[in-house]
């Protein structure tokens, strides 16, 4: 059957106060952007407490739903039929036709829920519900009422016209992008960082990304893998401005001058510093990493303390307390897992010491870093100046 209208119910926006329209407008815009890809002629309008999508005469329903399932902020999508003449007899016929087309003469239990935002309508909501229930029982002898666990929950809504629907398709939840600022994701080729980016974006935050590559120690393919990952999460997060930073010289300087077992910690401190510089340029309010407590030597609480110490911006670490499998589950859900496990080496692993420090002391790390004093400013500047920016869309 062809649905003329999709009613979108949103998640947490409903509890916002006077700035609620900011969130609603953002959600309308995100929905409209996605539906442009499906067909021309979708109309997205904010109605009281929800969003109404009017569909063009011809469109691919499955593709439309698939696109809506990538929009943060949507709680449920309800495909509805429109009954333009909401006078009682027309309404009963319209709702009955919908039930017949959708369910045929199937034997099932049901319940009617009614709402009228048009308070001039001559019946109250409870009366509409019970009267409509009776009419349906008359028309479909196989239906029976179950008010507790109905197989079909039939909604009838009366506004300037009437809508009938009985299905709700789960959306992603979260908040619409653009409603909550911007953050810089440290994106590696691994499993965790794309998931971290996705999770933060789900809270309505637009993300940019930075990737550190170390040619010739890491290959073009390793870089391409990161671009591919950014592209995969951009399905959800929208366009990503990916900063590719050449980290080789800094890495080699650290290897040259600092203790090898502190390499990863010191490297990560410089990555954070560089990420923060780009974050400020992009007007981001935070950094995002895929760090998770104890997963590797550089992610012990002591190591995180040392890495964190160089940052002025807050660092969002959404998977900090996740088990690996829980992260993998999300990676599979958002379709990044297969790409993340492609076997190209990243710059964190290539020179890693056999026994890296797991409980570094900040003062010792800071002392080791001083050995870089005479070269590091120049190397940092070069890394920043030679950044390659890829707009991933």
């Amino acid at each position: 059957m062809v649905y003329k209208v999709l009613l979108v119910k949103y998640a947490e926006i409903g509890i916002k106060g006077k700035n609620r329209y900011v969130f609603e407008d953002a959600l309308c815009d995100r929905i409209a952007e996605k539906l442009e890809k499906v067909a021309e002629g979708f109309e997205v309008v904010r109605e009281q407490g929800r969003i109404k999508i009017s569909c063009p005469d011809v469109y691919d329903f499955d593709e439309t739903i698939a696109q809506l399932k990538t929009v943060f902020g949507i709680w449920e999508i309800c495909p509805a039929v429109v009954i333009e003449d909401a006078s009682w007899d027309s309404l009963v016929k319209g709702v009955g036709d919908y039930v017949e087309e959708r369910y045929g003469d199937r034997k099932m239990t049901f319940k009617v829920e009614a709402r009228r935002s048009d308070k001039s309508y001559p019946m109250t909501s409870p009366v509409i519900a019970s009267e409509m229930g009776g009419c349906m029982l008359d028309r479909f002898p196989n239906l029976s009422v179950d008010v507790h666990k109905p197989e079909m929950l039939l909604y009838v809504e009366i506004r300037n016209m009437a809508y009938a629907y009985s299905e709700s398709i789960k959306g992603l939840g979260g908040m619409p992008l653009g409603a909550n600022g911007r953050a810089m994701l440290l994106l590696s080729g691994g499993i965790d960082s794309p998931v971290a980016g996705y999770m933060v974006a789900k809270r309505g935050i637009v993300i940019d990304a930075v990737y550190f590559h170390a040619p010739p120690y890491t290959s073009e393919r390793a870089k391409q893998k990161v671009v591919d990952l950014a592209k995969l999460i951009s399905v959800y997060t929208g366009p990503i401005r990916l900063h590719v930073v050449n980290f080789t010289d800094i890495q080699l300087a650290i290897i040259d001058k600092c203790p090898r077992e502190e390499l990863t910690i010191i490297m990560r401190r410089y990555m954070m510093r560089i990420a923060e510089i780009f974050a400020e340029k992009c007007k981001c309010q935070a950094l995002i990493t895929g760090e998770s407590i104890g997963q590797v030597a550089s992610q012990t609480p002591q190591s995180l303390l040392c890495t964190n110490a160089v940052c002025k911006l807050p660092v969002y670490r959404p998977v900090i307390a996740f088990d690996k499998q829980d992260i993998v589950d999300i990676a599979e859900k958002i379709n990044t897992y297969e790409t993340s496990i492609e076997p190209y080496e990243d710059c964190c692993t290539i020179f890693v010491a056999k026994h890296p420090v797991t409980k570094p002391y900040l003062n010792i790390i800071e002392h080791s870093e001083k050995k870089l004093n005479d070269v590091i400013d120049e190397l940092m500047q070069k890394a920043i100046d030679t950044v390659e920016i890829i707009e991933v869309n």
Partner: protein
Amino acid sequence: MVVINMEAYLDNAATTKVSDRVAEIVKKTMSVDYGNPSSKHNKGFDAEQYVKAATNIIADSLKVQPKEIIFTSGGTESNNMALIGAALANKRKGNHIISSGFEHASVYNPLLSLEDFGFKIDFAPVDEKGHIKTEELLKLISDETIIVSIMYVNNEVGAVQNIAGLSKAIKAKKNDLIFHVDAIQAYGKYRIFPKKEGIDMLSVSGHKINGPKGSGFLYVDEKVKVRPLIFGGGQQKNRRSGTENVPAIAGIGEAVKEFYENHEEKINRLYDLKKHMLERIPEVPGTHVNAASLDSLREAAPHIVSVSFDKIKSEVLLHALEEKGICVSSGSACSSNHPGISSTLTAIGVKKELLDSTLRFSFSVNTTIEEIDYCIDTLKELVPIYSRFSRR
């Protein structure tokens, strides 16, 4: 010497540039003579002439009959057809197949898949020069043995087998054995005459000899039974169905024709390049050449030089060379996507710490002495830098 923007493509064992003559005939069979050889009209007839011409060129080059040539999609399909096809067609005679310890994945993996169908596979060992230990191979032959499959030129180090000698030895022990030879790196570099060398099946790929990718053939002696792998419209005398890939077939035909023109001169030039590289490699510190030496230059293939580098991971050096416009390979390009230790290098006894530090340089008729000089000069510059930062 300062060379700016120089390029050196030294990965010709992975693939070669298509020659102008080949590209021309490929284009012609795509845009002018694009008929289906099976069609009854003249467009079909014209296309068929290309297939016949290519078949004749190839048959002549091998001194075999045209009907003994089956066109395939390339070396991998040729090896699959030879091994799986012959095994299935001859399973009543026995279920044992012998190969060597350093075959290409397109031989090794079909053999492993045959194990699922009840065949038993043994691998003969090779010595440090990359030669099959013939005595050990002969010991493996039993009443059940139906096929022996040996690579002519090894793709990673360029070692060459004495194919005629091996054939003689194994057939003396069991005369109805089918001898398959993977000649993907050898055809073009050598004149190969299957009837004289006792080869029953020979796999060849077109893109290693300046032909198009997706082209190749399998020579099958008329007495050898091979079950087809691909069924359909009955093309190529039912042995390999599917509309003939006329551009690829015409392309490989032209490539073979061109390659064997002034053949000796070409091969001498390749050996000159190899000699030059072997002479200059010691200028680069910490290098070890595998399965080749200046005093036995002609014992190995003319186009492959395998070098191990102390304390440098091959991929790092590969990418460093790439930045300088030099393309080489670590291990064999076909298996490079699966970082694993090369079985060939293990088989010829390369030291464990060098397994992961070996590059393959390979030449074609287009390779110049300047490219090799540029490569050596670049290595002299890069190796000291990158051996300083090694993994621990």
